[in-house]
C-alpha cells in the first residue's frame, strides 16, 4: 500500500466532486425556484412588486451563471489530473461530459461576459426544462462518479 499520484488524484477528485454535487443541487434549486415562483399564493404586494422581485430574479440567474464557470473549470482540472496519472478508464468516463461542456459553452448566446444563461430567454419553457433536466442529469453523474472515485481510490491504494 502506497500513496501514489493516482491515489492523490482520486482523493482530490472525490473532494471536488462533492463540491460539484453541491453546485448541481444549487443549480437545480435555482431553476426550480425560477419555474415555480408563480405557484405561491404570495402577497399581492410582492407579486406586483416590479423592482424588488426583478432584481431578485436576475440575481438568481446570476448565481446560476456564476456557478457554471467554476464547475466547468473544476471538471476540466481533474480530467487533466487523471490524464497525468494515466487513469485511462476514468478519463474515458469523463470525456463525454468534458465534450458536452465545451459544446455547451461554445454554443452559448451572444454575451460580453462569461456565462451561459441569458435572462431574456431563460424563462422560455423549452430552455427552462432543458436546464432543469441538465441539472438532474449532472447530479446523477456526479453522484455516480463520486462513488466511482471512492472505489478507485481504495483500489489504487490497496493494489499498489
Amino acid at each position: 500500500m502506497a500513496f501514489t499520484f493516482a491515489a492523490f488524484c482520486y482523493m482530490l477528485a472525490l473532494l471536488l466532486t462533492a463540491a460539484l454535487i453541491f453546485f448541481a443541487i444549487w443549480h437545480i434549486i435555482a431553476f426550480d425556484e425560477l419555474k415555480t415562483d408563480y405557484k405561491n399564493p404570495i402577497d399581492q404586494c410582492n407579486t406586483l412588486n416590479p423592482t424588488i422581485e426583478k432584481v431578485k430574479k436576475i440575481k438568481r440567474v446570476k448565481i446560476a451563471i456564476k456557478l457554471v464557470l467554476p464547475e466547468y473549470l473544476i471538471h476540466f482540472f481533474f480530467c487533466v489530473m487523471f490524464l497525468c496519472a494515466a487513469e485511462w478508464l476514468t478519463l474515458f468516463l469523463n470525456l463525454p461530459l468534458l465534450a458536452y461542456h465545451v459544446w455547451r459553452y461554445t454554443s452559448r448566446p451572444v454575451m460580453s461576459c462569461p456565462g451561459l444563461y441569458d435572462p431574456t430567454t431563460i424563462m422560455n419553457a423549452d430552455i427552462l426544462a432543458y436546464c432543469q433536466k441538465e441539472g438532474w442529469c449532472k447530479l446523477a453523474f456526479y453522484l455516480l462518479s463520486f462513488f466511482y472515485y471512492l472505489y478507485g481510490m481504495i483500489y489504487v491504494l490497496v493494489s499498489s
Partner: protein
Amino acid sequence: MSTAGFNSQNGTGTGQTYTNGPSQNPVALQQPSGVGYSVNHQPAYNQMQAKVLAPPGPALYPSGPYQPVPPGPQVGSYPPAPAQPLLPRPQIGVLPSHTPPQSASPGPGPWPAQATPPAQATPPPPAVTSTGYYTGPPAWQYAAPRGPAPNHVNPAAAAPPLMSHSSTQPPGPGAPPTSIHGYTQLGDVAGNGPQAPNSYNHVDNRMAGAAPPGPPGRHLGHYPSLPPGYQNTSAPPPSSLHPALQAATQPYTQGPLPYQQQPGGPGPSPGPAPAQLSPSMAAMSLQSSTPEALRVVNLLQERNLLPPAPVPAPTPCLTQDLQKLNCSPEVFRCTLTSIPQTQSVLNKAKLPLGLLLHPFKDLSQLPVVTSSTIVRCRSCRTYINPFVSFLDQRRWKCNLCYRVNDVPEEFMYNPVSRSYGEPHKRPEVQNATIEFIAPSEYMLRPPQPAVYLFVLDVSHNAVETGYLSVFCQSLLDNINALPGDSRTKVGFITFDSTIHFYNLQEGLSQPQMLIVSDIEDIFLPTPDSLLVNLNECKELVQDLLKSLPNLFEKTMETQSALGSALQAAFKLLSPTGGRMSVFQTQLPNLGVGALQSREDPNQRASAKDVQHLSPATDFYKKLALDCSGQQVAVDLFLLSAQYCDLATLGCISRYSAGSVYYYPSYHHQHNPAQVERFQRDLKRYLTRKIGFEAVMRIRCTKGLSIHTFHGNFFVRSTDLLSLPNVNPDAGFAVQMSIEENLDDMQVVSFQAALLYTSSKGERRIRVHTMCLPVVSSLSDVFAGADVQAITGLLACMAVDRSVTSSLSDARDAMTNAAIDSLSSYRQSALTIQQPGLLAPACLRLFPLYILALLKQKAFRTGTSTRLDERVFAMYQLKYQPLAFAMLMIHPALYRLDDLSDEGALNIGEQTIPQPRVLQLSVEKLSREGAFLLDAGLVMYLWIGRNCHQNFLSQVLGVSSYAAVPEKLYLLPELDTAESQRTRAFVSWLRDQRPFFPSLHIIRDESQLKPHFLQNMIEDRTESALSYYEFLLHLQQQISK
C-alpha cells in the same frame, strides 16, 4: 365621464382628470357602498360600427375594424332558425358544438365560413341584444345614472353598505338564488337537447354511408398539367345542392363572386347548372348538416377561397350566455377556439396552441370600477370574472383553480342596479374586459409621473436627413397633447461624438447646452435640472425645440456615440422611470456599443442562409434589462439609408417593452412619402395613451401552462411580463401547452391582467378574460381552428427559429406546419378518403397564408432584401396586433376604378365604399383598372395602362395615362364623386391602424412596380413557387 380622457382613441382626449369624491355631485354620496364605477357612454366597442348598428344589433361580435358591416337589412335577415330553442346556459360545452343544421336556414346566402357558428344562428332574444357586449351599451349601463353624477364615489365618504340597506335587506346567503343567469342551475334544464342527434358521429356515419367513392387517385401522385379546375371534366350537376354550398364550391371557371355577403341568393348566376363538383362536394350535398367549419374543401379544385371581405374571427362554440360575455377577439384570441382535452390530441392535430393579445387596445367603451377591495381568488389571485360560478350568494368558485372563495360583504351590493344581494350582476361579473382603479396595496412606490426623454442624433448624417425639424415641429404641435398631468417631465439629450445635455431649469432666460465629451465614463452635469416639469418650463422647452434644428445645421461631426448617450439617458431616467425616445440615423461607431457593418450587399438576394439576424453584441440587451428594472422603456426611431444593424439596436426596445419604428431611406426632400409617414407616426406616438411601470400576468385554467412569450417585454416569471411602458399599439403572443388532461372540464378560461400607472398617476388594472370550450375529438379541434391566429403565432415562432437556428430552418418549419396539420386532418379527422388536397373549410386559407409568410419580407429568400428591412419585418410580425400583422403577411387587393356605394359603410357623414378583396394574383389585375394593394405599412395604387379615362380625370386629376406623374404620393382632392369615394376609402383604411401607411401611386413602368408585384403572392416568381405549385408540393408531401 371620468374615463373619457383615457378611452379616447389616441389618448389625447382632454377629458377631466380623475376627481375624488368631495367634488362630486352630492348624489354620489348617497350611494351606500364604497363602490363606484364609471362608464363612458360611447355606445360601442368599435366606434365605427357603433354608428352603423345604431339600433342594437344581434349579439354578434363585430369582428374587427375590417369587417364591413352590411347595411341595415342584413341584420334583420340573419338566418332565422325559429325551430331552435334558445340554448340555455346549462349546456356549457356539452353542446355538440355545431348544432343547428345548415339546412335549417335555406333562405339566405352563404356566409363566410366562420361567420356563422350555429350557436349564433339562433336569433337572440331582444333582451339579449340590448346587453350585447360590444354592440350596444350593456343593460346595466342604462340603469346607471348618466352624466357626471355618481360615477365615482369616495369610499371614505360613503356610508357602510349594511347600515343604509338594512331595511331592504335581500335574502341572506341561504336563500335560493334568484339569478337570471342561473349560475347555480347547472344541469337543471336537461330537456333542451334537440340538437343532440347532430353530433359528429352521426354526421360522419351518414357521410361515410352516403358518399360515393370518388374517381380513385385522379390527382394523386402526379402533377396534372393544368389545374383540375381548368379541365373540362365535369361531374353530373347535382340537383339537390344547397345553394350556399354551391356558391361556395364553384371552382375556377365559375363566376367571380362565389361568396356573397348579402343575403338573398348567391352570385349573379346561381343555379345548379354547370358547376364542376369534386366527389367530395357531391357527398357534401347529401349531408348538409356538417358544420361549416369542417366542410371538406379540396384546395386543388377550388380557386376562389378568399372571402370578399376580411376574414372574421371564428366564434367559439359556447352557449350564447357565455359567448355574449366573452372577450372581444380583437383583444384576446386563441389559435384553437376549441381547446383539445389532452396534449396528445393537440399533438395529433399538429396545430400550435396559443393566445394572441392586444391588451392595451384603445377601447371606446370600457367599464371602470373603483373599489376598495378587488375581489380575487385567494389561491391563484385570479380576478373575479364573468366565468366564475356562484355556489350561493356568499361563495364563488374560481374558474381557474376551482377554489371556493367567499364573496366579500362589499361585493354584495350592486352599484348598477343599486340593489343588494346580487353579486352576479356586478359589472365585474358582467364584463370580460374591465378596468379597476387599484388601491394602494398595488403600489410599491407612489405612482410615477409621466416622464419623457428624447435622445436625438445630431451628427452630420442626421442633419442631412432633415428629420430634426420635422421632429421639433411635431413635438411643438403636440406638446399640450402629451399624456400626463401636472407632474409631467420632459428632457432632451442630443449626441454625435459627444453628449449634449440641456439645462431647462425654471428661471433661465434660454436653454443652456452642456456638453460632455468624456463618453467613456459618462456623468450627468447637473442631475436635477435636465428633466424638468413640462408645465413650469414650457416656454424654455418651446424655445429649445425652435432653435434645435438650426443649432446643428453646420455640424461636420460624423461619428455617433449612441451607446454612451443611452447610458446617460438611462442615468437620467432611472430615479423615476419613464419613456426614452431614441432617434438614430446611422450605425453607432464610437464608444461603448459601437458596431460594425455586418451586411454584405451582394448577399442580399442570395438564396442561401441569411446571416446576422442575431445581435452582434449584448450591450444593448443588457442596457435594456437595466432599463426594464428601473421602469424605463426605450422606443427606437431608425431613419437611415444605410445599414444600421437593427438586429442589435432593436434589442434596446425589445427587452424594455418599447417599440421600433424604421424609415428606410428617410430624406426630407428626396423621400416625401417617408416624411409624411414619420410625421403622422410621430403624432400618434406622442399623443397616444401610455401606461407606465406596468406588469402583465396571464393566468389560465389549471392544466394549461404558458410555454413561450412573443413580443417586446422582459419575462420575469413564468407568467409575468415586465413592461416598463405599455402602449395601445402593442400586441403579444403566447404559446401554451397542456400539462394535465382537462378531462372533467367543459370550459377553460384565460385571464390577462395588466397593472399599470396611467399618465395621470393612477394605478389601474385592466383585466381581460376569455372562456373557451374543451373538446375531446380531433375533428372538433379542427373545427375550432382560427387560421389567422395560427398564422400569426406561427410567424412569431418562425422569427424565433430563424434567429436561434437559421432562416431556412424556419421556412421548412412553416411548410411542415401546413403539411403536418393537413395530413393529420386527412388521416384522423376525415372518414372518407378522397383524392386531392383536402382541408377543413376553417383551414382552407392555411396553405395560402403559409405561402404568404414564405414570401414575406421577413422570411423570403432569393429576392433582394436589405438586412435591416428583414429584421424590421420580423419585429413587426412579433409586435403588431394580429389584425395588422395579417395585413403585412397577406396584403389586401382592391379594385378602385369601379367603386360604388353598393354595400358601403356609412360613418357619420361619410360613405365608405367596400370593394371586395381580390386574390393576390396578376391574373386579377387588368389594364383597364386601377388597383389598390394594402400591405399594412405601405399601399400601392397601380394604374393600368388603359385605365378608364374617367378614373384618371376624376380621381387623379390628370388628362391621360402618360400624364400620371412618376412620383405621386397622395390623391388630389377633387370635387367629384369618384374622387371622394376613393379618398374616403383610402383614409378609412388608414384610420383603422395606429401607424400611417404611405401611398405610392404607380404606373406600369414605375420603379416601384417590382415592389408591387412582389406582393402578388399567388404568382410564381423566379425563386418561389406559385400558390398552385405550392399546393401540389404539399399534396406530394402529404401523400408520401
